[in-house]
């Protein structure tokens, strides 16, 4: 692969969420973490970087307070970390999010050839952004990938769908990865040293020249009417002692 940028989309997710019963809105609690599958995606980018003359640009749409967390990605081997942060981005559905990411990639990462991200996020779990973003960029999209190898102007990817499918995919393209691809990104000693003088780049909606009607709630094509937490009341028979005996008797009865 010639000198090029690999873009890795990394989402910051809360460790825990619950519902505010008064406002019916999601409350984020506890620490923020990187979406685990996006760290798997990042590690795939690092593997490609080691065998080609590529650099890694991380893009994340998150609140400004996550800047310090995102700075850690330099230690894993990121060359650039770009934080897209604006109150107008609040309430974005996957389409509005994909639009913002697309604009950022085109305007800030001129030589991008490959975009890698996790198949889905821990909190949203829709898995929509990959396909929507690829369509907006008019590039091929393959998901559920566990292996990426680069060869000049294309990549060879393997994914599991009924069988193991091996594809040759022209660049630029967008690949989303599944858990099995690798064990996730780790801190690299060389990058750790290099990271000391690197800073996260922060961009607002105005800096990217984004129309207000295309971002946040206004730019969304789906709407959340109601959010609720399912808290069922159990009315059956709960065994609170000697449970092991009840289980053992059952297992004997079914001859296990």
């Amino acid at each position: 692969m010639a000198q090029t940028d690999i873009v890795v989309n990394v989402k910051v997710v809360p460790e825990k969420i619950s519902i505010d019963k008064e406002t019916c809105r999601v409350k984020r609690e506890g620490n923020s973490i990187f979406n685990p599958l996006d760290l798997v995606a990042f590690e795939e980018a690092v593997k490609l970087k080691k065998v080609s003359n590529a650099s890694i640009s991380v893009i994340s749409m998150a609140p400004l307070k996550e800047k310090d967390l995102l700075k850690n990605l330099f230690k894993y081997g990121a060359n650039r970390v770009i934080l897209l942060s604006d109150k107008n981005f609040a309430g974005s559905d996957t389409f509005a999010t994909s639009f913002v990411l697309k604009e950022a990639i085109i305007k800030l990462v001129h030589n991008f050839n490959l975009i890698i991200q996790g198949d889905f996020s821990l909190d949203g779990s829709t898995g929509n952004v990959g396909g929507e973003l690829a369509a907006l960029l008019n590039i091929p999209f393959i998901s559920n990938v566990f292996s990426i190898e680069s060869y000049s102007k294309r990549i060879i990817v393997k994914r599991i769908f009924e069988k193991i499918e091996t594809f040759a995919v022209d660049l630029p393209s967008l690949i989303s990865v599944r858990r099995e691809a690798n064990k996730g990104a780790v801190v690299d000693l060389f990058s750790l040293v290099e990271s000391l003088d690197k800073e996260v780049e922060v961009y607002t909606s105005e800096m990217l020249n984004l129309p207000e009607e295309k971002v946040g709630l206004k730019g969304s094509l789906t709407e959340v009417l109601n959010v609720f937490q399912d808290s069922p009341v159990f009315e059956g028979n709960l065994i609170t002692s000697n449970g092991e005996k009840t289980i053992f008797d059952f297992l004997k009865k079914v001859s296990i």
Partner: protein
Amino acid sequence: MKALLVFKRNNSFSKEVWSLDLENYFASFDLTSRSANFLPDKEIIDSTMGVDFISRIMENNKFDIIIFSDELIVKETASYFAGKYNFGLIAHSKEFLFKENNIIGIVPGWENIQADVVSTSDPKLIILKSRSIVNLSLNNPCVIYLKEPTKVKLLSNEKIVENPLKSAKIIVGVGRGVERNVLPRVLEFARLIGAEVGCTRPVGDAGLLPPDKVIGDSGVDVSPDVYIALGISGAIQHIESVNANYTIAINSDAHARIFQKSNLSINQRVEEVIDKLLVLVLSRL
């Protein structure tokens, strides 16, 4: 309302689809399907071909709603189609409601949080779980001629060894409530009773068990005779992928959702029950 249901093989969708007064048309990605009104002339290998297929169907047909199954190539196509034509896509719905001429998708999220989501575009797009095949015996399908993809080439297709969880008769499921130091005893218990071991996604994400052990939306569906759920809260994404004849749940939280689904509900610490079970099982050997 006119609906286009898009699938590869699994066209059962949810009972809501069949109970509503929709005029349903079926498009299958499998060119040998006998349960479709629309078929491709060649195998659909990637989402751009899938979008080409749907777009050509829509050249002569107007639909109010397009329902995609959650099979990989189909839901990949759904998101690409939504992005290409700026349609609102309700993803990952477990079911939907039809209210005042609008489709409301019920989307499960984290920690048993659920959201009612609508699409504001026309047509509305929704991805629904669809896990089995229904023979519709539709004759004379319309064949749609597709362009060969230019940027993606399928080089090979190799058989995979089927995940043993899929055919296991007894499964021990490990949830976040099983502490790391207890896991070896759980694995030993499973081995002694001849059970396969599965887990919830958080356990897989934490690396306690390999990714192919994950049971749920992001893993496999299972249909054992007996499912022993250890420290599993009962999140929808996991429990809806378990179709067991008999479920035993052990959880120290008396309000765990899993107890709604279990036949035998043990409100005790997993470690305490497993240790005593091991003694009983070993004494029987």
